């Protein structure tokens, strides 16, 4: 159960954000003004913040800069109508942890917030990840399923690592492409699906219970079998 602060001046967008994050079981507080938002963010002890880029009172970039200067490391998802790459770079440089362009799909927004929350919880850098009988040794770069070593290509290992770090969490194709390949454009066709399919054949091949699930209309999720 996470506490999330939504700083957003547009009432309709704010309602969507609050509804989506609340439905995922979070407690969401909303403010529509930059100054009030900064005050709450500094004192409220939230687990994550969604921050509109353009706000009355104090703009989002200044707000996040002030927050970081005060030593508050709450993860911030910046949400902006400015879609160009320079705006994204500026937002992330100022101290934002992720950047989402308006208009956005609420499930993608929620997924991104979840990833930030997860990162917040596992602040210590792990050397190994595990999910059911799947283990990832991050130092030796080796994956094992049920004790058997999986022959993964470097790109497949990075993909699996991203899924495992965010297990039980829906990850959209865009999020996967951004995190694993590091690019912010639409790779088109079904290139990510093909990579997932290959990884799935290696991880879930044979008679093993499936760990990598397709979430219809959204993306993928790795989850221990029930």
């Amino acid at each position: 159960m996470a506490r999330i602060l939504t700083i957003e001046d547009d009432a309709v967008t704010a309602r969507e954000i609050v509804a989506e994050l609340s439905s995922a079981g979070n407690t969401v507080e909303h403010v529509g003004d930059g100054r009030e938002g900064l005050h709450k963010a500094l004192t409220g002890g939230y687990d994550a913040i969604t921050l509109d880029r353009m706000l009355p009172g104090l703009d989002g970039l200044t707000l996040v800069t002030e927050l970081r200067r005060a030593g508050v490391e709450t993860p911030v998802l910046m949400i902006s109508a400015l879609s160009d790459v320079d705006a994204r770079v500026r937002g992330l440089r100022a101290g934002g942890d992720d950047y989402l362009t308006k208009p956005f799909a609420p499930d993608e927004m929620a997924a991104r917030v979840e990833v930030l929350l997860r990162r917040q919880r596992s602040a210590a850098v792990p050397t190994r990840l595990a999910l059911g009988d799947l283990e990832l040794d991050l130092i030796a770069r080796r994956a094992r399923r049920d004790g058997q070593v999986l022959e993964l290509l470097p790109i497949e290992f990075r993909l699996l690592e991203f899924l495992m770090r965010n297990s039980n969490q829906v990850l959209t194709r865009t999020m996967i492409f951004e995190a694993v390949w590091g690019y912010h454009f639409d790779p088109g066709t079904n290139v990510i699906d093909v990579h997932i399919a290959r990884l799935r054949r290696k991880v879930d091949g044979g008679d093993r219970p499936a760990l990598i699930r397709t979430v219809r209309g959204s993306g993928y999720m790795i989850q221990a079998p029930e």
Partner: protein
Amino acid sequence: MTAEMAAAAASPEPAPTHWRAGALRLIVIYGAFFLAWSVVLVGTIHWQTLGYLDRVVGEILEQRAHYLASVEREHLPAMMAATDQLDLRGVMYFGLFDARGAYLSGTIDRAPDGLPADGQVHLLPNGVRATNGERNARALGVALILPGGDELVLARYTSVADRIGAMTRSAFFWALSLLLIPGLIGGFLLSRGPLKRVRGIEAAIAPITHGNLGVRLPLSPRRDEVDMLASIVNRMLDEVERLLGEVKGVTDNIAHDLRTPLTRLRTQLHRLQQSGGAEVHAALVERCIEDVDALLARFRALLRLSELEDLSRHSGFDTVDPAETLRRVQELYAPLAEEKGLTLALESDTLPPVSADAALLFEALSNLVDNAIKFTPAPGRVTLRARVEAAGPRIDVLDSGPGIPAGERDAVLRRFYHRSDDTGRGQADGSHGLGLSVVAAIAKLHGFCFEIGEGEHGGARMTLYCWPCSKAGARVG
């Protein structure tokens, strides 16, 4: 045959020479009219003067002849000699001949041929032969028969008139030099100023033709015709810039406006799907979401294209190793190619680094590979090939597909253009007809040359030359 796409260099206007300049040309035309009229005027004066002088000489001759004819025959030779003494310039000649033409007395040796003895003045083109053997070029003569049957001949040379004629002609040539020398020098100097300013305007226009609409033509403090023209063009550029800004704004707005309701629609469908229901119902909803996602992707690409065409993003430029970018593109697309029954091969030399935006270069090459995979039937091959040429690295994406007909190579760059073998496939496979436009925009942003041609095995060849199209002779076909 190839179709050039990005950053095609406009062939420069031939540099105007001084001889083509407006001021000089006007002076030359004016000079030609002046010359023609001068010839007519001076010619008229010349011929009228000569005619007048000939008439005066003729009258003198006639008077002399009638006077001498009235003198008694025995006194005539003495009178002729006395008259001759008075002719200090030696232009008058006299002759007395008998009825058979034999010389009797005077300074003319022989009666000139073709001079009728009618008492009228006639022109003697060959002059007369004097007793001292002299012969002048041109003379006027008169001959008459005396009552005794002898023939009296008088002649006067026209040398005075001829000298005046020569003076008129030389005056004409001096006048001509007055026209030609200051005219040509003045014209050359006059034409230099405007030509220099036209060159200045030409230099100012160069960035405008390359898309920088913020530049204006230079104005001088003189406020002359060139300035008037430049300020008219500047006003026009203001308007063009404003309109283009509006059009771009409208395009962006359309994309934004459409994106919002589509996103809402997608949200509703997503909620519907979450709320549960029959399996068929869920599948239907999923297809709807996929369709909406495809639409959203299309608009994202449109906005992306608009952003790229703004030519504003230079912050990401750095030194990039194209071979590494190619390796990553191959890593991303090899599984997709294999899934389709194609081989995605990488043939790369060691390449020198280029100044580029790594993310955009990756995006351009991804689009090319994605496109090649899409249009190559299985079993087939897509090759990423990088070579070093004199001007820099050259990257080819070759495929074993049907290729792009020469006539369609420019058209495939148009937004939302669908190839003739692509009927209805666009949406189904997620392509949005913008991939190659994005590549062309990225190439233009980098100052690279992008070309579509034919590969050695008949398929399409998409080539990214890491140098401008205008760099003549640097490209090897």
